[in-house]
């Protein structure tokens, strides 16, 4: 494909660059675009990025490493889609992904993106870790391999490999076991869901990954999937149907909210302790699920305090679009994850609840860098449920 075939040629010039895309729902600040919050130069705002992409397409500017980094700093959080008042707003993130498609086609990628994609291709995960270590998260848990149970429990790459996210994967599994529902996991046979591959613009690899997973799921007779990660949830729900994969997909919070009476815990009483909740973009803005996680949190007895930017207006942790590995938004006091944990801390909450392994690792790292470990703990909702008395 040449640049002339760019899919959004007809609309990319329509961005007026008025800056609505920088704001959250309540206009609280211009920093709700994670990349703009991090860099504070217009080139990193959504409008700036769209104008630069167009300039690249028309030849006004040439490809450069810096241009690619600006494009790949988009975390695909969809805040811009939410706020842009113009009629093409639903296509904004697609326009950016399409530019990434072009860069992939031309082989013009920043090194961390290239590495990310190669690792998926070679090892089935972005970390480049061996596929045979994928089932490590299940060690010591009595989880059955999938063999026709009602649900597949799919943990995804972070849940499988990241030591912190593994704890969340285990907490969810523990609760699922407690509910008594019939489920199994794929262990070493699980492979990357491909959501980030899509966000990084590698169409060919998305197709490969999706088709392989679909084939495997269909062979095993999988019809219903529970995901740990909202990213996987998005992939199965919104990307796989393109390749003929139709499954009933649930984020784990959606399943647990209906089975609360079965997971009653005898843990510590919350005694009015305060918790705040960070909406993951791929559950919230991408899939409009705002209530299931909150229903679970309310059931724990904790006092749920909302951050000023929440639900449709939540600030992204900066990990989307592969950034949890490629890290174009890290390394600064103004990295979105650090801004977010400061915001969480300011609510007076002692727990920052998440429902995404990606957000979990991003925000926990940020808490450490901010030196807030004594005051704010980042926990997955499943972990909170296990520890608390309902």
């Amino acid at each position, binding site marked *: 494909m040449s640049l002339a075939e760019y899919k959004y040629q007809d*609309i990319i*010039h*329509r*961005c*007026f*660059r*008025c*800056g*609505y895309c*920088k*704001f959250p729902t*309540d*206009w*609280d*600040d*211009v920093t709700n675009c994670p990349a703009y919050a991090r*860099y*504070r*130069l*217009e*080139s990193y705002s959504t409008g*700036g990025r769209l*104008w*630069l992409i167009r*300039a690249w397409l028309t030849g*006004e*500017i*040439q490809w*450069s490493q*810096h*241009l690619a980094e*600006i494009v790949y700093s988009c975390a695909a959080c969809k805040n811009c889609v939410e706020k842009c*008042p*113009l*009629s*093409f707003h639903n296509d904004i993130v697609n326009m950016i992904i399409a530019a990434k498609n072009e860069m992939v086609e031309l082989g013009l990628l920043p090194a961390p993106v290239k590495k990310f994609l190669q690792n998926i291709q070679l090892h089935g995960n972005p970390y480049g870790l061996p596929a045979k270590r994928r089932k490590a998260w299940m060690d010591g848990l009595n989880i059955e391999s999938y063999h026709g149970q009602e649900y597949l429990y799919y943990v995804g790459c972070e849940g499988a490999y990241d030591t912190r996210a593994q704890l969340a994967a285990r907490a969810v599994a523990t609760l699922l076991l407690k509910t008594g529902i019939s489920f199994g996991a794929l262990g070493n046979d699980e492979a990357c869901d491909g959501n980030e591959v899509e966000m990084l613009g590698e169409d060919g690899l998305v197709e490969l990954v999706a088709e392989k997973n679909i084939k495997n799921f269909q062979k095993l007779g999988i019809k219903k999937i529970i995901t740990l990660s909202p990213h996987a949830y998005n992939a199965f729900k919104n990307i796989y149907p393109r390749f003929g994969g139709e499954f009933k997909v649930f984020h784990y919070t959606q399943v647990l909210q209906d089975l609360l009476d079965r997971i009653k815990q005898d843990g510590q009483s919350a005694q009015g302790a305060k918790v705040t909740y960070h909406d993951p973009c791929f559950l919230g803005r991408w899939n409009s699920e705002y209530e299931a996680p909150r229903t679970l949190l309310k059931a724990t007895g904790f006092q749920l305090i909302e951050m*000023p930017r929440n639900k449709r207006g939540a600030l992204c942790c900066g990990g989307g679009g592969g950034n949890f590995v490629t890290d174009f938004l890290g390394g*600064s006091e103004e990295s979105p994850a650090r801004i977010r944990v400061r915001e969480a801390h300011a609510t007076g909450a002692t727990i920052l609840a998440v429902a995404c392994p990606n957000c979990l690792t991003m925000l926990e790292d940020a808490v450490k860098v901010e030196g807030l470990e004594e005051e704010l703990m980042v926990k997955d909702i499943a972990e909170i449920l296990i520890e608390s008395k309902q």
Partner: protein
Amino acid sequence: MDPIYRALAEIVGEEYVSDQPEELFTYSKDLGTSEPIQPDYVAAPKTAEQVSRIVRMANQKKVPVVPLGGGISLAGLALPLRGGITLDLKRMDGIIELNEKSRYIVVEAGISHGKLTSYLHRHAPHLMHSEPGAPPAATIGGNVVIHGQGDLAHPYGFNSDMINGMEVVLPTGEICRFGSCAIGSGWYTLHPLPDLGLFLGWSGSTGILTKISLRLFPCKKIREMDIFVVEDEELVPDILYELTHAGMAEDLVAWSQEIPPYGNRLHHININITGDSREEMEFKRHLMFDIRLARYIQDGVGGIAAVSQDIERPQISKSADWKKGGGFEYVGSIMPVSAYPECYRRGMEISIRHHIPYTILGRVIGSAHGMMFSYSYAFNRADPETVRQAREALHETDHMVLEIGGTIWKPAVYGQQLVMERMDPNTLQLMKKVKTLLDPNNIMNPGNWEVN
């Protein structure tokens, strides 16, 4: 390494300075029809001290400095006409003091209108500032520097009339304060100290505002928009006269536009009414509609098009997309209200001549002491011919505005030249002296309001 780049990086930090083609491209572009002009550097300072250091360095190196807020003036006012350093001021966005009882707020000049509105909503919901119809990313500094007007223009005037104090970095780098804050008192008044009037209206060519104390006004609990409509443009000044006599509205905007069709050739007057109780609202409505406007309704020449509409944040950006082209620019003019009919007719003629759907809007300032009358021209950013057409229409409108006795608001350089051609020669010379005195090296947004 380039010494200017090095100096900027040392002052604002490497992260917030760039001389890369991507940033230079981005900051070379305005949203309107202006031709792009690249700066040599872009820097985003965080404090007045950093601004001051940059300006001092720029004087030594004789390199221009162009302050930029939201960058949405549309008139190319923050384009670096002579290159140099574009200073993106949006990191200077702090709220320094809210004084509820004295109804003012001190902010850093790069704060957005959206952020201020949200802050007040949360921390002082009974207070508001005058927010322009511009996108919420517009900054307080960028707006007052060009004498913007907002949704409290009818009761309280231009936004630049609502300033209680300012901190400014002069073109030679000194940080100066004006108003009661200059003598170490609170930021509660700009008067009665000697009026310097050196910075407002100058499009950033005489100094960089870094802090502003803004007046706040009562924000009533119940807010609604009513719309009165007439077909005959000649009636609009009379109706506005009646409405401003009643003095019950918070905002008065008359408009007519080709798209959507219900706006075509009809004159809508948006009337914002606010109150703390139903009785107050009822009383205001009664005074305006039953008493002041009844005769137009009885005569069958006017009608109430809508009542009790929610007042929503204006989304004028949408007009950029009427040609599915992502662009529009307007000539803003300050006019006597009595000129409405002629403004409308002449504006429509220009639009028709340039094949652009007409959009004409006038906001009442004060008790009908004036009107900000805008003529908008949409264009397709991907079609240079439509950009050219819009630019021609804008230039033609600049001429027309002056011809019919108005002044141009926030003129682009083209309009500035037209205004200065007509300006009283003594005034013009004074402008030159002021500029030379303040900015001996002519580094501050050069090319704007430049007296030859």
